[in-house]
């Protein structure tokens, strides 16, 4: 307490009580959104928007620049153009990622079987990208019903226990290619893109948009080696 107040027994007692009341806040994990604002002063999506305008420099730009140089990037589209599979992906993430006992149907210990099985059911070769480089290990995957036949759902976990899921669908219709798009559904952040016959959606509720973009970048590069 301030020097003037140190000798006052009542303020001293009050100080101790206030510390008991409010010090637990100091030990609470700082939400990622606050951390991001501390770094850049803006919410992650605004940092992204700034980067898109090539106004801001910083963490985001490096990760993004590859995408803005991507020749296939179409003009920005309205939110209503979000393909329905993005919402499904977010719902699947919200449904399965909190699962403690059965987060996946087939575990990563049977990865070859998992990939072969999902490829067969989707009628196209599916890959489970390796994300150790960005801190995530494959837990496994499952088959889900989609709006256009079965879809593959891969789950990854980092050492701290946060999970990201990759939703892969075959896109028989409307297969207009897109660069990365970002969408939130409730508290789930989703980066999605359509590439040839596949639609991909990478979801997380726990990590920052910047970091999720980094993971998405890693997924994309593995699926599209140059």
């Amino acid at each position, binding site marked *: 307490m301030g020097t*003037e*107040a140190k000798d006052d027994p009542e303020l001293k007692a009050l100080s101790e009580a206030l510390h008991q*009341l409010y010090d637990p806040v100091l030990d609470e994990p700082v939400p990622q959104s*606050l951390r991001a604002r501390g770094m850049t*002063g803006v*919410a992650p999506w605004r940092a992204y928007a700034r980067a898109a305008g090539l106004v801001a420099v910083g963490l985001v730009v490096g990760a993004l620049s590859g995408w803005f140089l991507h020749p296939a990037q179409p003009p920005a589209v309205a939110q209503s153009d979000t393909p329905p599979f993005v919402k499904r992906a977010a719902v699947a993430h919200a449904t399965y990622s909190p699962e403690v006992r059965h987060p996946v149907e087939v575990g990563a210990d049977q990865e070859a079987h998992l990939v072969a099985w999902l490829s067969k059911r989707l009628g196209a070769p599916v890959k489970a990208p390796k994300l150790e480089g960005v801190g995530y290990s494959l837990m496994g995957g499952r088959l889900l019903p989609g709006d256009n036949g079965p879809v593959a759902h891969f789950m990854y976990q980092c050492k701290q226990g946060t999970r990201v899921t990759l939703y892969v669908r075959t896109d028989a219709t409307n297969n207009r290619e897109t660069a990365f798009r970002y969408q939130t559904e409730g508290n789930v952040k989703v980066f999605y893109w359509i590439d040839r016959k596949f639609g991909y959606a990478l979801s997380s509720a726990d990590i920052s948009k910047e970091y999720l973009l980094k993971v998405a970048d890693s997924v994309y590069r593995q699926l599209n080696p140059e």
Partner: protein
Amino acid sequence: MSDADSIVGLIPRLRRYARALAGDKAAADDLVQDTLERAWAKLHLYRRGTDLRAWMFTVMHNVFVNQLRASRPGVQLEDDLPELSRPARETESLELRDLDRAIRRLPPEQREVLLLVVLEDMSYDEAARTLGIPIGTVMSRLARAREKLRSMLSGLPPGGKLHVIK
């Protein structure tokens, strides 16, 4: 260490103060978010070498005052805020819970002074500079806050001279 690192390092302190100031967790985190955003926008006004923490608390004070004005147009800050409801934590003693409630019933400008001096360990002078008020005002607000707390915690009206009969 960059300003960004320093600001990130201050977040837990800002959150603690915001929680005591704003009451519930959601309102407190909103306050911290707006504070961080504003601090970043105004960082060019921060003079290097001066106390960044005091500067951040000043920013939070300004955001807090603006939020109060926005949520209660036309209402003077001197008025008591209505009691905010908050679920009781099991681990808190009754006395602490009463104190928490009493703090939140203090007029905001008295609450700020009390928290800066007693929780954030600021001297009267630091608190005065943080809030942009004369040091005498800090002392009078602190005195009034203490008197209010005493009366709320003992159930007596402010200025009451009676002692509690057990």
